[in-house]
């Protein structure tokens, strides 16, 4: 063993040591990259929704909207906002699969007397969406991110009927389909041609499709038809019912998502679907293994059942009192 060979071996050993260090750094970098997207903040006041949360002042760049066919949520009052980063626009070239810009955030506030929850979705750089829900303090001055598993029975909607705060997996149950994570913000739901009989419709319309177009916040909408989107039905009641199924069932029961093999196309519900006794059966029960939707409510939607009964019997439907 000569001195020169020893020098080579020493050199090789030092190089090996540096290589291990490089390997460890690569590993840390890979882990750091995998750790992004950025997790939603702990407090609602940190999300940018409120200019002044204690005074309930919404930030000017968060736009109020109201889908014409709201989801049934046990009678909770709801308000919704969308934030689109400045200079960005929604790509609506695929009608059933709008592409939202990175950084888009949608919020939905639920109130039972007082504000209870504000839920949020945010589009991440890698195309995925982050979900969070914020539970309001009783004094209404701040809302705090709920635990990942949610909170069952946060309070009572009415005696014996709990309000459950969803966990991450509950968010994903409805919003986790890669083909359509955003629900309730679409051409039909924001159409200026609003259905006067839509069950539980909220009084103020907010941002509509024509506003989005005028503000340059949407691109690629097919402009062939002069009419705004609407359910074209034989009667007002049929229109309202088919719109209801679109909103309450179509998020899962459609031709594009993970449950397409079930063969139910309730995003484009027909009059024949309305006559299917399975629809009425699932709407009329809150038995956990039978109710539809499978989560999110403990109370039957009596208004839609009454409308369905009236339509089937050919009776004049009552105009919705929730205006």
């Amino acid at each position, binding site marked *: 063993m000569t001195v*020169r*060979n020893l020098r080579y071996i020493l050199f090789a050993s030092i190089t090996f040591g540096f290589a*291990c260090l490089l390997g460890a750094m690569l590993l840390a970098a890979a882990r750091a990259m995998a750790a992004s997207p950025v997790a939603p903040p702990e407090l609602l006041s940190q999300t940018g929704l409120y200019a002044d949360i204690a005074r309930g002042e919404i930030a000017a760049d968060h736009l109020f909207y109201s889908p014409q066919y709201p989801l049934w949520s046990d009678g909770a009052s709801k308000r919704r906002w969308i934030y689109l980063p400045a200079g960005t626009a929604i790509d609506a070239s695929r009608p059933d699969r709008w592409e939202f810009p990175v950084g888009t955030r949608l919020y939905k506030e639920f109130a039972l007397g007082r504000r209870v929850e504000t839920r949020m979705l945010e589009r991440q750089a890698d195309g995925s969406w982050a979900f969070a829900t914020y539970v309001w303090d009783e004094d209404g001055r701040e809302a705090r991110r709920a635990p990942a598993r949610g909170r069952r029975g946060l309070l009572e909607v009415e005696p014996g009927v709990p309000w459950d705060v969803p966990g991450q997996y509950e968010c994903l149950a409805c919003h986790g389909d890669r083909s359509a994570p955003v629900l309730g913000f679409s051409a039909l739901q924001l159409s200026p041609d609003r259905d006067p009989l839509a069950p539980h419709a909220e009084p103020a319309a907010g941002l509509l499709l024509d506003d989005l177009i005028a503000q340059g916040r949407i691109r690629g909408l097919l402009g062939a038809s002069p009419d705004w989107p609407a359910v074209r039905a034989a009667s007002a009641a049929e229109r309202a019912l088919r719109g209801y199924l679109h909103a309450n069932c179509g998020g899962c029961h459609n031709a594009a998502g993970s449950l397409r093999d079930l063969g139910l196309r309730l995003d484009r519900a027909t009059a024949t679907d309305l006559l299917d006794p399975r629809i009425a059966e699932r709407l009329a029960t809150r038995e956990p293994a039978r109710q539809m939707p499978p989560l999110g409510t403990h109370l039957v939607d009596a208004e839609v059942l009454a409308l369905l009964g009236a339509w089937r019997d050919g009776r004049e439907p009552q105009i919705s009192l929730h205006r």
Partner: protein
Amino acid sequence: MHTLRFPAVLLTLALVVIGTGPGRSVDTLTWPAAARAGTADDAVERGAYLVAAMGCGDCHTPLKMGANGPERDAQHFLAGHPASLEMPDAPELGAGPWMGVMSATMTAWSGPWGVAFAANLTPDPATGLGAWSEDEFVATVRSGRHRGRGREILPPMPMTILDSLTDDDLSAVFAYLQSLPPVVNAVPSPRPPRV
């Protein structure tokens, strides 16, 4: 002696490549090596081991009476509650510490949740898991909901056992289940609790 220079340089290069190894294959450092689903065959083998060890067949393969006492019905391996076995209403237990009743096949379970029937885990597309994707299987386990989106999986299915598995192990379980012979067996829908 310069003839050693070349081998020394080669040794150095080899050591550099080996040294950066841990940074290149991230996931080998996260799970134990034995659990890694390497080739497709490894996954199926690992899945078979896990399914045997977790005892899935205890509820999902019907028990039948053989010549020497109760035995598993191999024709219905992991195929769930036999469709041909009509179950009458379970006996009422009333208030008290006894909570549940099971069928002799150990595939139908009556309790406060109503009646649950063990699912067909074979890859038959119409009556088993043949139409499911791996994502849906994992979503079912992690969320406790049917296909990650529907009704909750009912007791007595011990979801916490499956949920404690790593993603790789769940993937192996699914690969094994998908490799089984498909059995056509339309397990009945669960029954609600009697009022």
